[in-house]
């Protein structure tokens, strides 16, 4: 009978170990254990905690069978804790030995992001190298980007027709990189417009983008010696509502009939609404966005589309400044290195060598 009872009783998990959770702000301890030999009969594992060497303990939580890890995210960094994991089945409980004592503490450096640091350093080295090359006077080749080569033609067209140029800097706020790239391009385009003397309309969805855009255009006109040509009305704030903004831009396109439309920045579902309206008025349209899902709509409705990173290359392309061109080179070599790493990891995966964790950003 005792033998039967012994055979039926459930075994506890073994080798319970606790350690401070790495790369966090403190207050968390990880508990790991080896499964109970009777894991298939276990309903769940209950995790208990006590302050080290104390006699009283508390129940923290539970996991289902087959799970060997639990995170206690409610620790006091000034205390040391011990843990026990309990096998539970049909009200029968079986306690493991208490774990080692563990204490949580905040970390200064996130070791799980070393791969990002290495990537930044590599990119920085590439950038430094090509900047040195540019400063030494070496000519840096950049392929023709049709959308950007057409900017002069686009601005000239509007001047000849006596119609305004519409520049929509996207619907993203200033924290989107695409919006920053758009501001860079706006500066270059505004300088050309100042020379050609064509009216400019820059509608904005966000207040910060409006203030930045206004300063960019104003400074561009000033730098070309045409501060008097700058009109406060060139840069406008419309509304933060997505489709309200699209409706307002449509209204501008239909009423003021710009000869040239630029759609440069971050866009969402409203992209085709604006681009197609512009196409219907016969405007010359250049678009550029990093929103992959909106690219097909722009390709369909616009004369030229800057795809993905061409948007980020635009500022360097238009200004032809050696320092900016050098950064494009660094970008391209960075992509080449990433491609080589991807191919290498793919080959390793085929050989069943799994090192994908090296690429993971925690």
């Amino acid at each position, binding site marked *: 009978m005792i033998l039967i009872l012994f055979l039926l009783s459930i075994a506890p998990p073994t080798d319970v170990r606790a350690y401070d959770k790495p790369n966090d702000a403190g207050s968390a301890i990880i508990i790991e254990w080896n499964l109970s030999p009777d894991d298939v009969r276990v309903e769940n594992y209950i995790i208990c905690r006590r302050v080290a060497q104390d006699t009283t303990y508390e129940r923290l*939580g*539970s*996991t*289902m069978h087959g*799970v060997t890890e639990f995170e206690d995210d409610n620790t006091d960094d000034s205390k040391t804790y011990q843990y026990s994991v309990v096998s539970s089945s049909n009200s029968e409980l079986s306690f493991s030995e208490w774990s080692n004592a563990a204490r949580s503490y905040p970390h200064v450096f996130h070791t799980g992001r070393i791969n990002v640091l290495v990537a930044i350093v590599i990119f920085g080295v590439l950038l430094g190298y090509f900047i040195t090359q540019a400063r030494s006077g070496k000519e840096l080749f950049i392929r023709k980007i049709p959308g950007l080569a057409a900017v002069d033609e686009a601005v000239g067209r509007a001047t000849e027709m006596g119609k305004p140029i519409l520049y929509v800097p996207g619907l993203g706020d200033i924290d989107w990189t695409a919006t920053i790239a758009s501001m860079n391009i706006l500066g270059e385009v505004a300088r050309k417009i100042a020379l050609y003397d064509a009216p400019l309309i820059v509608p904005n969805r966000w207040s910060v983008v409006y203030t930045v855009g206004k300063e960019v255009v104003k400074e561009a006109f000033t730098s070309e010696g045409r501060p008097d040509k700058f009109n406060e009305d060139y840069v406008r704030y419309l509304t933060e509502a997505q489709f309200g903004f699209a409706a307002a831009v449509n209204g501008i396109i239909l009423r003021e009939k710009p000869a040239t439309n630029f759609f440069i920045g971050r866009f969402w579902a409203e992209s085709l609404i604006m681009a197609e309206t512009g196409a*219907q008025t016969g405007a010359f349209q250049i678009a550029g966005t990093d929103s992959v*899902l909106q690219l097909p709509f722009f390709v369909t409705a616009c004369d030229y589309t800057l795809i993905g990173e061409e948007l980020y290359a635009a500022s360097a392309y238009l200004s032809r400044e050696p320092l900016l061109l050098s950064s494009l080179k660094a970008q391209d070599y960075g992509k080449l290195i990433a491609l080589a790493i991807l191919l290498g990891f793919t080959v390793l995966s085929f050989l069943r060598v799994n090192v994908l964790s090296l690429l993971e950003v925690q």
Partner: protein
Amino acid sequence: MKWYEIISRIDRRIIYLLLTFFVVLPFFIPLTIPQNIMPQTQKLFDFIEAIPQDDKVVLISFDYTPQTMPECRPMAIALLKHCFARNLPVIGVSYDPQGPGLAVEAFATVVDELNAHAVTREDSLVYGEDYVYLGWKSGRIAALLEMGENIKGVYPRDHFRNAVDSFPLMQRVNNYKQVAIAIVLAAADYPLDWIRYPQTRYGVKVGTGLTAVMAPKYYPFVQTGQVSGMMSGMKGAAEYEKLILDKGYAKELGTAETGMNSQSMIHILIIVFIILGNIGYFFARRKKSES
């Protein structure tokens, strides 16, 4: 103008007029365009079909927004009808701030429809016994994890400020052990949190109903079994409506079916216009090269 020039330059107002006509037509003339059922939709349906009655509950997370209602609301309606037809109690939650209003509306629509045909009290759906809507909670991940220990600890009161303890349904539901499947209806990445946290730690089965744009991202999860079934977009909703109709759980098809009829008509119309445009283009090019 020659015929090929006419068909390659059709006035867009004619296109818009025809588009409007064909979108509206299925609402007045019922069409029966047969739906093919995608495997992932069938999987979700079969899972719910297999849940034993008087055992566990179905948990539905209403995380869609007014903008995605056309796709996600029919999913919610069809799911609720399926669950109630099988006498499976439903617990509703939301983690998107815009979810609660839509959840209440979905429950009200289905419950009112079913109760209108109820003969006895046993046939009726009663709040607190057959379904409960717990409401919206901030701190999504913490709430998902804590529900694995004690749902009533996370939701001491439901969306309508009633004490959850007072409901007969909630007296027998403590945590995920009593949940057969958690189905997430969303237009954002909420299902990923359910897979990462409750499923990994507590083994909760997860199903999803997603917009068509989001759905491809979750195909790998369906393949690995981490997602027990998925409705994708309005088509997925229409498929589910057909499945419950064929099984006798609904008397008629829902709004997704009508929407899909409109969508199918429009696709055909666009294809016809594209073909006409290309025919006109080719003939014009041929005439030009001949001359």
